[in-house]
């Protein structure tokens, strides 16, 4: 009886500890206001990020010319150590913030993603590592916009 109770208490304690040690990235709330922002400034303003510095360590692989803006594959490689968060924005989209990725340990800081681009614009990427914000961008020319129906 007491043994069973001890085992039960231990299980409860382990669960509680697991809850506490679960890292911030896994429980982070979706930044709703940033996703609803209708300009790069308002999206970023809702995120409370440090000032960004340009970085050559962020590679954005995207087509120079996208015939169909509704389906543009972008590939992002971040060669900065201990990256915890990567933001992708289509600068001239109605809702510029496209994705907000949070990496835990055990992930190579690389990802690919299909996005919509409303018109020709820069795809801008921000990477947060050790409390510092890095940025890079790449221009994609869009022939047929992908946000509003034709």
């Amino acid at each position: 009886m007491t043994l069973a109770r001890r085992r039960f208490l231990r299980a409860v304690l382990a669960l509680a500890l697991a809850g506490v040690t679960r890292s911030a990235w896994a429980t982070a709330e979706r930044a709703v206001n940033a996703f609803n922002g209708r300009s790069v400034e308002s999206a970023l303003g809702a995120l409370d990020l440090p000032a960004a510095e340009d970085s050559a360590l962020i590679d954005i692989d995207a087509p120079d010319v996208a015939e169909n803006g509704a389906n543009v594959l972008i590939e992002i490689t971040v060669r900065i150590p201990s990256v915890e968060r990567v933001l992708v924005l289509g600068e001239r989209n109605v809702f510029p913030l496209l994705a907000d990725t949070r990496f835990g340990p055990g992930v190579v800081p690389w990802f690919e993603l299909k996005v919509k681009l409303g018109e020709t614009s820069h795809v801008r990427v921000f990477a947060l590592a050790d409390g510092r914000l890095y940025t890079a961008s790449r221009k994609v020319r869009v022939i047929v916009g992908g946000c509003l129906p034709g």
Partner: protein
Amino acid sequence: MADNTFRLQAKRIGDGIVQVKALIRHPNHNGLGRTAEGEPIAPHHLTEVTVAVNDQPLLTVHTGSGIAANPLLGWKINAGEGNRVSVAWTDNLDESGRAEVTVA
């Protein structure tokens, strides 16, 4: 699994590294579009995609309405043969989906 909204692939590409590709069937309406009759189409898009290995979450992507319809998402994660890789999504209407594969 038997979730037909999903195609999930996990392939070993190097020592301890697995490339995951998820193809999620989802309209991803941003709320700006209209039907052929001119009726507005309500927003319906993915809000969160998570990737886990053996049920341990590895990364989370919060997405906006600017993700393509039926998008491809891919990552490279530390995993190996026999690990179970799962990808789960939810959208702004609280619909969800999940798929799991075992790394061969």
